């Protein structure tokens, strides 16, 4: 058995960035609460955008994939690590938090 909290599902996605993020301090938006999530952006080496998700709602992998793919199409960032802790947020809330987090980055 892994050391994951029982019931949580982990998902990872990697996209190739087209726009390298300027140096930035880590960004945190949202809160871990029912129907909500927190999103953290950190600088990372390389040209990729890696996305790690811990979610309490199991079995929605394909929807997460569609949501983060659209996110990366809107913001084709590289050199960024995105981490999310989710407690059953809807795709609408996830997309909103991701956009809010990106708007904190230096232009």
């Amino acid at each position, binding site marked *: 058995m892994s050391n994951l909290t029982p019931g949580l599902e982990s998902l990872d996605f990697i996209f190739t960035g087209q726009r390298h993020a300027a140096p930035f301090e880590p960004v945190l938006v949202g809160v871990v609460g029912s129907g909500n999530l927190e999103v953290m952006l950190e600088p990372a080496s390389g040209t990729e955008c890696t996305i790690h998700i811990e979610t309490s709602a199991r079995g929605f992998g394909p929807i997460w994939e569609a949501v983060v793919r659209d996110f990366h199409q809107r913001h084709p960032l590289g050199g960024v690590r995105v981490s999310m802790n989710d407690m059953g947020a809807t795709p*609408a809330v996830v997309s909103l938090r991701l956009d809010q987090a990106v708007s904190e980055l230096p232009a």
Partner: protein
Amino acid sequence: MDRMHWNTKALNRADRLARSRHALGGQLVGKRVATEAIGTLLEAVLEPNDRVCLEGNNQKQADFLAAALVQVDPQRVHGLHMVQSVLALPEHLDIFENGIARRLDFSFSGPQGARLAKLVSAGAIEIGAIHTYLELFARYFVDLTPKVALITAHAADAAGNLYTGPNTEDTPAIVEATAFSGGIVIAQVNEIVDGNATTLPRIDIPGDWVDFVVQAPRPNFIEPLFTRDPAQISEIQVLMAMMAIKGIYAEYGVQRLNHGIGFDTAAIELLLPTYGESLGLKGKICRHWALNPHPALIPAIEAGWVESIHSFGSELGMEDYIRARADVFFTGADGSLRSNRAFCQAAGHYACDLFIGSTLQIDLDGNSSTATLGRIAGFGGAPNMGADARGRRHASPAWLKAGREARAGRGGASGTPRGQKLVVQTVETFREHMQPAFVERLDAWTLQEQAGMELPPIMIYGEDVTHILTEEGIANLLLCRSDAEREQAIRGVAGYTAVGLGRDRRMVENLRDRGVIRRPEDLGIDPRDATRNLLAARSMRDLVRASHGLYAPPKRFRNW
């Protein structure tokens, strides 16, 4: 039918009254029946197979009479045909379980929906039909006229005059049909005034139409159905409210409207004095309402947005506020609200240009329904609010614009100029627990098969829906010219649901170019601006403050 005699109803009525007087003896003084003698009265008045209206409204309930009806002797009273708008109390179904009642015509069964479905499948209840409110009231005057009406009022005087007060609701329609067709009207009241030292604030039902009055041991139950705590409104609901105001209300210049219950519409109400104001829309939209006294509308009323509100019922805690804003609400000379469900339903259907409400499921034709498996619930007033009024003949700019959009380029009968009501379904693409709001097939079809209904229980037909609003955008179905376009317009706002992911991306982009689908950015709305700070009240306490302390929320909504 005996047509040698033309006064059988009057004779039957006289029989029932004589039986009652005899059975009650000293427990009847004038029209007043002793509380403990209610069972005696019911057994004397009722005959087997009578058609009975046991007043069950959306909000107030004749709960004492309901409890008394459950207790009558089924040997004497049985086979009743119940004709009432709402089944809200367990007693409303208990009478079917013990054989007192057999047949049912109704409109809405909310909390009793699951038990109703079980009793129907067990053969304990025969359902005549599930109606809208207005439809059931209409049938009271055609072929479902009550023989006995068991109603509830706030107070009575010795002559039987009734004060129904803010929660008048269905009472006038029920009493009118019963009293003028040789029926018997029995009223439970919270208090009795003597008519001399104490008088009724006003007369809502003349005593001449009421046969018996009984004081209930406890005030009638009233449910605060329309209170929504602003603290629970989400940013997504704020975003959708911004789109409704800018993309629909402003676009069509909607002056007269009805809002369904829910957080989505509460968000719109709370955004009028903030976001609506910033768009310069005050006085241009939302001036006249067919609406219960929603606490969430207080900030807009205080900011001078609202000229008039007519109400189906009342809302607990709003009494003093309404009294103090008599220019806006319909109030009697005594100052308190007069609601009337039948008139307000007619107002919502014929005199409003827009209805907006939420739903549980929408299919690819735009049909929407709140019907779920294992429950028989009905839809109350929504189908009348959410339907084009085909009999409407007066014009307004909003109605004409919607009609033009629907008819542009069409000829013959379907191109004949006329207006159309705006019917907006507002849903987040996923409800709680990730239940998709968009589905290939409504549960209503399976429910139809299970319950042996003649039609699937669809709340609002796709043909009547003009706009679907989600967090992804607005689909304007008026502009669609084929079933295929309509399907893609719906898929195009269905987000990450299976229906949404199944879209034809090229066709959806084409619909967007034509303005059939409009995204927040197409409307000049940045979703990141959709914060709770835009709400004119963010808590119940804010609502109380906005009302200058006049709104007194029920205890369960007080968290400070």
